[in-house]
């Protein structure tokens, strides 16, 4: 159909073609390089994000998540946040910042799992008790009010805290601001009181002294509710992420 025309390598057309090729090579390397830079964050601080309920093992989670945020949209307390550019390949993948807004299972099931179109949140999960986001850990025992046998009065996180929680006795269906709820406790048991999972945490007597200590049990799913509600700054209790996720 067409005749191959042999071009003089010094003709303007050949020179133009060479320049276009060179620019394309540089641009291609640039675009690929920028995309691959996303590898550094996932390789250096891997497994540190608390992923949504039902999230499969971290590596597969990042592979399968299509970064659409449908899970974000169904969460009644907006506990899910989409990661930004510093997360590299994790850009757009949801995580939970428990201290700011924990997952308190206000949705009564696992709505985010149902919303996920790709199975990044495993559909094998349909009850909150099956979730394995992580485990709570008492990281600053000395600051714990209960261990010092202290009570707690007022708003758990102060008047300016934006976090939401469903207090069933206030409103069975709609979560309210933690700041709109006043506590008056003889001994601080917020982490136990607000835990959405049965038998996940309890206050146990201490060997020496009158205080009590939070004990995290096997049933804990790592939702982060105790971390969010802990009135001490910084929180005495934090989530230890389970990199194997809820499918394992």
């Amino acid at each position, binding site marked *: *159909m067409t005749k191959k025309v042999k071009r003089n390598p010094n003709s303007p057309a050949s020179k133009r073609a060479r320049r*276009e090729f060179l620019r394309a090579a540089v641009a291609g390397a640039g675009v690929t390089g920028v995309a691959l*830079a*996303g*590898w550094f964050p996932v390789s250096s601080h891997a497994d540190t994000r608390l992923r949504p309920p039902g999230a499969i093992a971290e590596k597969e989670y990042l592979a*399968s998540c299509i970064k659409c*945020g449908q899970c974000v949209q169904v969460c009644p307390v907006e506990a899910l946040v989409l990661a*930004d550019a510093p997360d590299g390949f994790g850009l757009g993948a949801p995580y939970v910042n428990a201290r700011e807004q924990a997952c308190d299972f206000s949705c009564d099931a696992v709505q985010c799992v149902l919303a996920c179109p790709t199975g990044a949140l495993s559909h094998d999960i349909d009850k909150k008790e099956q979730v394995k986001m992580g485990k709570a850990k008492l990281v600053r025992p000395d600051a714990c009010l209960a261990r010092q046998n202290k009570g707690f009065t007022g708003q758990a996180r102060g008047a300016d805290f934006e976090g939401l929680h469903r207090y069933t006795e206030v409103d069975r269906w709609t979560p309210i601001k933690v700041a709109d709820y006043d506590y008056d406790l003889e001994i601080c048991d917020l982490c136990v009181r607000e835990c959405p999972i049965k038998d996940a945490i309890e206050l146990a007597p201490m060997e020496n002294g009158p205080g009590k200590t939070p004990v995290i049990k096997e049933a804990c799913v790592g939702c982060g509710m105790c971390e969010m509600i802990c009135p001490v700054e910084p929180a005495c209790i934090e989530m230890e992420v389970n990199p194997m996720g809820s499918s394992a």
Partner: protein
Amino acid sequence: MKRLLNSLKLMLGLAPTRPAKETWTQQAKEMHAYKKSAEQVAVRREAIKEELAAGHSSKKWKIRRWISIITINLLFVVSYHFDVQLVEGALTASRFVGFHMADLNSALQVTLAYKHMVVNLVIGTVTVFLLWWALGGRTFCSWVCPYHLVSELGEMLHLKLVKMGLVKDHPLDRRLRTVLYVIFALLAFITGYTVFETINPVGILSRAFTYGASLALLWIGVLFLVEVFYSRRFWCRYACPIGLTYGFVGSISPVHINYNLENCLHEGECRKVCLVPHVLEITKMGYADDVKIQVGADCTRCGMCVDVCPTQALTFKVKGLDGML
């Protein structure tokens, strides 16, 4: 079939070629001969003079397109912020009144990285595949993609600066997009990460509209600056793998731009406004091997050429629905 293959080759970045005279259809031969007569050349010369003097510039399709891009992207935002639940998610994947939709390129990246496809993703992908096959593949680019709008603004600025002599367009080798397509497919498959999604402007913009501004928008800024100051429509023309995915899907679509050789003045105004001018190579004198030709797969059906053509040599056409548009 041969024409489809040529259209795909052109999309993959090979240079357009002038079809040999022996391959022209009889009608095309006659039409070219007729157009070359001294009388017709004079008629065209006069018509071109008039056209350039009149500065024909309809904005019909551009306005329709902008309304489409803005409306669709706004629907996502409105659905979330006012809890209308019409289109939930982002352009990478969504539910349209509960029904799954998945961007074909994002779905491809996820599938290559995860090596597994759940039923919902299959449903979403098939639905969207059929949708864009029917509507013309790269129609997605110019009628839905939010980056297209950003890029169009960049192009306007670029052309202004070019006119003022402040910048110059630097074209790239068009094979780049094919190479990037293969690179990102391989990277997803080998690393098990959706590497392309890290720089996917559609995902970044769509998420930013709905869930709030992000640092990732800096990347959009970089692309914008490159397009304004260095290379016209850099991303859409030479880089974006999404465009190629949709290009394949729409290569045999019923919706296309139709070229009518008889009406054409061959003055080339259409190629000046086109995002992918190689598909309009057929409008050069002696390049059309038939009197009516469907413009190739890489065409985004943006309608800029339709707007600028003074003689309706380029028109929207839907196969099977002649005369309805």
